[in-house]
């Protein structure tokens, strides 16, 4: 699947001065009113949809420019690549730069919001390398976005950088989520270090609902190995203290282990250590390396062919599961995994991330296979072999 265009340029627009840069608009389908034309939408910055009467406030969104009615007081024209937009989606416009970014797609199962690019880690294989700059406008934009989301949605994710860099503002966002959206799952990808301060864990517990999970990367049971991977001395200590405090306040925790050359060298030891010291976490995610961002620059230290850790990975899964932990594997194709773990291998968390190779066409497992990242510069395992025997698919049921 081709990745969707999430940002791009505005073709043409005319809007009331009250609309400013970084305002967030919610998309409404006009199908019923405009004879099923899928290229005309109404968009609004208001939380309630009862304000449609007044023409001053109506903003028309045209895709592909064929049907523009320039008599409209407010209109925006977007290129064809945005024709996937649909009712419930949310877009931020930057009028001075004539560009836009799609922030939320109702049809996506996994909407992730970037909270900040600031981070106290500098991981060797970071896929979104952090930046040290003031980007508080991102948080402000999120504050406008959350109230516009559909009142029910399955999943909302927050990533960074480190989302808790600006603790109070981000906690406000979580409260907004709870006030406006009934989400089945809210997932925050955090390194957990801010929770070394028990008070912050307590504050989070006051705004968090049961649906919130903090996903925390953990790379080793050994201090210097974890610290080296995240490039920050003392990181393991703070992350572990953070996890203990989150647990103390009953918050849901997910542990994420990215499988690279360094972390897989002692993978079973790490798994055993997690099984003994952190058996209370809600989920352990073992994740194939995304070959993008810093992973490209550090190719020689982080890249490893997944077939090399095949056995260690299945043993680790067994160790973790034996104490009752729920475990999933992400971002790794079936053909490099031991069959005993196929049933916990999940397709990529972002739907545009599953790409396949020509030889995959003959593979029985393709419909369920996580495939490869379509982003970055995928490096291929020597173990890619189409699955011919459809009987093994039984394992997936």
């Amino acid at each position, binding site marked *: 699947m081709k990745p969707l265009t999430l940002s791009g340029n505005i073709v043409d627009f005319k809007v009331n001065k009250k609309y400013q840069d970084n305002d967030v608009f919610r998309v409404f389908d006009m199908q019923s009113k405009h004879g099923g034309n899928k290229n005309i939408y109404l968009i609004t910055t208001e939380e309630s949809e009862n304000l449609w009467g007044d023409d001053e406030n109506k903003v028309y969104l045209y895709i592909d420019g064929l049907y523009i009615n320039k008599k409209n007081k407010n209109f925006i024209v977007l290129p064809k690549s945005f024709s996937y937009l649909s009712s419930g989606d949310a877009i931020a416009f930057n009028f001075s730069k004539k560009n836009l970014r799609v922030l939320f797609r109702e049809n996506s199962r996994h909407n992730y919001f970037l909270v900040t690019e600031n981070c106290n880690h500098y991981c060797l294989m970071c896929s979104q*390398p952090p930046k040290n700059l003031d980007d508080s406008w991102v948080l402000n934009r999120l504050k406008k976005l959350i109230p516009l989301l559909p009142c029910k949605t399955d999943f909302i994710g927050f990533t960074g950088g480190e989302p808790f860099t600006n603790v109070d503002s981000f906690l406000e966002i979580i409260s907004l989520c709870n006030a406006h959206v009934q989400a089945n799952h809210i997932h925050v990808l955090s390194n957990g270090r801010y929770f070394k301060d028990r008070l912050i864990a307590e504050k989070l517990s006051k705004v968090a609902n049961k649906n919130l999970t903090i996903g925390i990367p953990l790379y080793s049971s050994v201090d210097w190995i974890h*610290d080296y991977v995240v490039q920050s001395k003392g990181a393991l200590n703070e992350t572990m203290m953070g996890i203990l405090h989150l647990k103390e306040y009953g918050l849901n925790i997910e542990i994420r282990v990215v499988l690279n050359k360094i972390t897989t060298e002692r993978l079973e030891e790490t798994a055993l250590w997690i099984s003994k010291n952190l058996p209370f976490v809600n989920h352990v995610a073992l994740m194939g390396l995304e070959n993008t961002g810093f992973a490209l*620059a550090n190719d020689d230290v982080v890249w490893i062919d997944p077939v090399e850790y095949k056995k260690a990975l299945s043993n680790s899964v*067994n160790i973790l599961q034996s104490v009752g932990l729920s475990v999933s594997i992400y971002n790794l194709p079936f053909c490099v995994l031991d069959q005993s773990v196929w049933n916990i291998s999940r397709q990529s968390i972002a739907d545009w991330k599953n790409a396949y190779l020509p030889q995959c066409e003959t593979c029985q497992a393709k419909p369920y296979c996580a495939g490869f990242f379509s982003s970055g510069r995928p490096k291929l395992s020597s173990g890619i072999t189409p699955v011919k025997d459809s009987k093994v698919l039984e394992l997936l049921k």
Partner: protein
Amino acid sequence: MVKFLSQSDFFTQKEELVLLPFRFERMADGRFIISNLLGDMDFFTEDELNKIVNKDIFPGDGLYERAFSLQFIANAPQEFQLQTLAARLRSRLQFLQTPTPLHIFVVTLRCEHSCPYCQVSRRSCDKQLYDMPLEIAFKGVDVAFQTPSPAIKIEFQGGEPLLNFSLIKEIVLYSERKSSEIKKYVSFVMTTNLALMDDNILSFCKHHNVHISTSLDGPESLHNKNRPRPGGNSYQLAKQNIQKIQKEWGNDYVSALMTTTEASLSDVKGIIDEYVNLNLGGIFLRPLSPYGFAIKTKYYKKYDDHEWFDFYKKGLSYILDINKKGKHFPEFYTALILKRLLTDIPTGYVDLRSPSGIGLGALIYNYDGKVYAADEGRMLAEMGDHEFLLGDIKKDDYFDIILSEKLISIISKTLTQCAPQCKDCVFEPVCGADPVYHYATQKDVLGIKSLSKFCSRQKNVISYIVNILQNDPEDAKILRSWIR
């Protein structure tokens, strides 16, 4: 271009390195087992042990990583390891927050069997003398419901409890009323040889969820030899009734225990096959206990602990083979040890914990109203020794019993955490205080551990299991599947 730091920039400095508490023991092959405060353990060479003790280890040398992962060493300015260990220790001792979950009622001493190693039963038919009276039973239930534990289990024992089933019915009904009144969950189990089982009893048990625990010593000839009764059909009756319960009620409602006698030693496979064929879901290869008539009749002395350990090892390897063929069939003693080795889930098993489970884990209400700290305690009492007698239901309540000087003194005297030998023992976190055993064999609740067969058995079994876990991945995988 971004700059990344190298591995050595993150190495712990030698002066930051501290030792955390750990214990070690030399094995027969010269290797050492080292264990952290909570029983995470592995094998090391003498040289490796010395290096750890002298902090002669360096990040990247492999030994540093193993020692750090097992929490033998820490980085002094960092506190996460100590905090993690503390949190885990709290979970391991959680059973202290829910004292006395198990209450055993000896509803009668009478029995129609005459097993030579039996500790307590009477062949007498004098109901007046050896049955528990109703008012004592009800008082016992009242005491049981006074325990702080949010869930209690009531176990019916004998003698043969089916000889006094009418009392069991009364106790069940009364407990159910109390349970809904004061919102404390109650479950039931009855230990019976099943010879007197009938449809009415089974239907009552099924209706009131009274689980069945029975005895099965192995194949017919062995079982009947161990358990003589008029008619010589103990095995027949047990088997027939086990199958009947399984068919009419379900496999999970009946379990069996075996007693290892001298005659069992040569036929561990036969015994295990019997359990597999009867779908009993696992087996407990337990040694004979040194109580009551087993001592009096010298039965206990008939085999030594090495013979039992060989029996256990042979049995375990046979059981592992059965599991390899795809059948989930645990050996329960191994499973208990594994749970302690691999998890911090507090164990309910009274002999494998410290503070000991006597009184705090279980109380025994004898037919005559006397309350004992352990089942074996009343067996000793039958021989005139009242060491474990805690009180009398006719005048004492739960708190009189649990706070009695006697119980407190026995428990505090036997804590493995500070008992001689145990406190330095590598297996301590996985082991337990067994005051009753040591009293029965050494007339001392603490006991000299180097003379204790309990101790040598623990050392043998635990190191045997740790060895499999570390060195045999295929068997280890099976063992891990037993802890849940």
